[in-house]
């Protein structure tokens, strides 16, 4: 029979065994992993002060890194409101419990409480982007205290370079905020170049840094293999940075001519261009500098051995085939484009020597301005018709071929010379109309002009006219048509040469006695013609009546009496 006492002892015994087994667990819960080594009864007082709960002093006995910072009044834990460790770092909550507690959440943590306010870009960073092993200075100090460098928030320095790479490779101050703000590395709004040994003035103010501070390759850093050179730059003379386009010819003191505002503007008005390789002569002395030294033109490689570098080729390459490649100097001088210095002699050694009237013709008559404003200097041919209109509309060709005449020169020159169009060298005897009398002195056009208005043919070379009346007007109103001096002639034609010669129109060949039916005798011989031959008007045609005339005396005299 099991007695009451036996059962009681058994239960108490069972409990005591259990109690002993958990004696080490008098604590109200497991310590977190970082404090695992403090588990056990004998370790209680390592954290707990007898009669004083958990005092910061006990914590700081182990956390000496923090203790030092608190003593130095540095960081979050030095603040009064954070001096009671257990308010944030509660333990006995289990092995995996995170001892670090962000009261308002890690993202709302007021970093200024640590003594370092997050400003600018720093505000956007995640904690571990800064608080990481790479950024911890004196790593060994923390490792020796068993700090997990990827968990601790200690070890950072306020200095920019404790986290940031020194882009300037030690050339400049380690205090980055002297030049940069916390919003971005670029630009550096706090930097004042005037605080340096080289104050920026004029154009230097608007030049990007990199133009003066060149990038230097440096392979030591895998992330950034180059940097801008800020130190060790020479700047005592302009040519330390700037290339001397004058190659030293004008000296090394650039400010003698230039200012810092622009290379292009000549600061000193006494600048003597004749010191350059291009002394100013003639018209060049009158033009403004910027007409040659234009803003869009580099001065560094200024070429001036050809006019075309500055001047537009007015002739659009018409002379580019020439030996001097159409350089202006062949025809023009610096005294002005006009007049041209191109002489007749120079013209005469060309493909079209000037002769005769061409010598007297102004240039622009042969070289006129075309509609597009260009003066024409090149022609497809040197034939007369290239310039001159053919008034015969190829009549000369037809004429020569019709007469089987071969002519190797320009066909115009068969009849004409360079001296004058009107000076015809054609032998009219080759035609069936010999020129005599007045015909020899009159212009060709008097006979050969086209009676029919035709813009293409104004002069007809071959005339099939041999009768006087075919060219000349019959002022006698046909009174002599019926003259039958030659039965072979048509009555429709008047043989003028019966009375007239080619010398003039005077009727020098007319004999009143033989050529008329009324022989002049007596007083009649002394009469003027018009005393008998009256001017009449018949049907609107006014002419001198020669025939028929009544030969009776009364027909003249009575009437005259009556007229008296």
């Amino acid at each position, binding site marked *: 029979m099991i007695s009451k006492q036996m059962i009681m002892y058994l*239960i108490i015994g069972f409990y005591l065994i259990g109690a002993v087994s958990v004696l080490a667990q008098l*604590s109200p819960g497991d310590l977190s992993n970082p404090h695992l080594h403090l588990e056990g009864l004998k370790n209680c007082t390592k954290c707990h002060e007898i009669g004083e709960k958990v005092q910061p002093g006990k914590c700081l006995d182990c956390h000496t890194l923090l203790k030092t910072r608190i003593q130095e009044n540095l960081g979050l834990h030095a603040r009064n409101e954070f001096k009671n460790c257990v308010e944030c770092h509660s333990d006995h909550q289990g092995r995996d419990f995170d001892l670090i507690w962000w009261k308002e959440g890690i993202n709302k943590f007021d970093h200024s409480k640590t003594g370092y306010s997050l400003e600018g870009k720093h505000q956007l960073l995640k904690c571990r982007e800064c608080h990481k092993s790479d950024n911890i200075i004196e790593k060994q100090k923390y490792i020796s205290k068993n700090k997990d460098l990827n968990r601790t928030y200690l070890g950072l320095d306020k200095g920019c370079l404790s986290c940031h790479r020194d882009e300037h490779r030690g050339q400049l101050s380690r205090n980055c905020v002297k030049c940069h703000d916390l919003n971005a590395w670029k630009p550096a709004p706090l930097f004042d170049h005037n605080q340096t040994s080289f104050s920026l003035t004029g154009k230097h103010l608007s030049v990007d840094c990199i133009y003066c501070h060149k990038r230097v390759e440096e392979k030591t850093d895998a992330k950034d293999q180059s940097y801008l050179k800020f130190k060790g730059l020479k700047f005592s003379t302009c040519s330390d940075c700037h290339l001397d386009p004058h190659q030293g010819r004008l000296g090394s003191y650039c400010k003698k001519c230039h200012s810092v505002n622009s290379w292009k503007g000549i600061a000193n008005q006494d600048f003597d261009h004749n010191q350059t390789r291009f002394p100013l002569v003639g018209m060049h002395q009158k033009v403004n500098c910027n007409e040659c030294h234009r803003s869009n033109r580099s001065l560094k490689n200024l070429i001036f051995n050809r006019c075309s570098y500055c001047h537009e080729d007015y002739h659009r390459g018409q002379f580019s085939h020439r030996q001097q490649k159409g350089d202006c100097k062949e025809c023009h001088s610096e005294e002005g484009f006009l007049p041209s210095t191109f002489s007749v002699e120079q013209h005469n050694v060309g493909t079209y020597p000037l002769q005769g009237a061409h010598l007297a013709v102004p240039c622009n008559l042969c070289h006129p301005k075309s509609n597009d404003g260009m003066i024409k200097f090149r022609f497809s041919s040197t034939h007369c018709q290239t310039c001159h209109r053919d008034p015969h509309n190829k009549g000369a060709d037809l004429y020569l071929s019709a007469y089987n005449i071969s002519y190797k020169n320009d066909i115009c020159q068969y009849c004409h010379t360079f001296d004058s169009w009107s000076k015809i060298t054609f032998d009219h005897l080759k035609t069936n109309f010999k020129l005599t009398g007045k015909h020899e002195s009159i212009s060709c056009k008097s006979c050969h002009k086209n009676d029919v208005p035709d813009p293409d043919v104004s002069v007809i070379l071959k005339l099939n006219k041999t009768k006087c009346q075919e060219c000349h007007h019959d002022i006698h109103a046909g009174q002599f048509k019926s003259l039958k001096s030659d039965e072979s002639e048509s009555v429709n034609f008047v043989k003028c040469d019966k009375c007239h010669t080619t010398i003039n129109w005077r009727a020098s060949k007319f004999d009143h006695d033989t050529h008329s039916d009324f022989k002049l005798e007596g007083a009649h011989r002394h009469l003027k013609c018009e005393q008998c031959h009256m001017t009449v008007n018949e049907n609107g045609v006014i002419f001198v009546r020669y025939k028929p005339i009544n030969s009776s005396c009364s027909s003249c005299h009575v009437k005259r009496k009556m007229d008296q």
Partner: protein
Amino acid sequence: MASSNSTLSMNRIVLFALYIIAITILVYYIYDGYDYYITPFMERPHHPDHQNLKPGGIRGHGLGIIGTIMMLTILVYSMRKRNIIFSGIGQLGSWLDLHIFMGIMGPLFVILHTSLKLNGIVAISFWSMILVSLSGFLGRYLYLQIPRNISGHEIDLQELESTNENILKEIEGKYDIERSFISEMETLIVGKLYPDKSEFATFFSFLKADIFRLFRIRNIRKILRRSKGLSKKQIGILLGMMKKKAFLHRRLILWNNIHRLFHYWHVFHRPFALIMYLIMVIHVVLTVILGYTWIF
């Protein structure tokens, strides 16, 4: 006798008021700290109420102190029962009522104190407390099976048999019911009784009978109404007398077994209580040594 009855009823009023106050406080604290209590343990230190409701917090620690005091007050009954203190003061039943009140409400305060965060050796104290408290209900049940007089002292077997006979005669005389019917009804009320079986079999049989009676009572009323033609009121009075008679009869038959069971219960109840107090003392001493002196 009249003075004794009025004292008893006054004690009950005070007890009722204590229950109301204690339950109100507990319900309020549960309601007020509900969000904290349902927060996972690992997140609780980050809860805004942690400093107040954690076991070492102002309220949490206070609840622990109150719970501890209540648990210590439980011992007053044992000492009074053994006349160590308060000898002759109040009736033993009232002290038992106080003992039960403290045994129920004390653990609830302690539970709130722990915020259900049970670690280390103090957890043994906690679970011992739970076992002691729950076993208290069993003890109370067994306690009721032992007939006692008004002062709470046990009635001896002879007195019990006499009381049983008196009731039997009263039923026979009042309702003219034969003994065989009364016996039949008793079986329906308390089940068949097996005094020769073991203590634990006896315990389970009357536990089973007490449970099933809840369902049988309607049937018993029906039998009484049909067979004896009694009114509803008469059935109520008769049933009360029959239940009293049946329980007395069961106590008579199972006297030895119940007493043995009650002794066994003590064997179970006391060591847990002892362990609970022992570790509780260690816990309290340790916390005080480490400086956790609540508001002091």
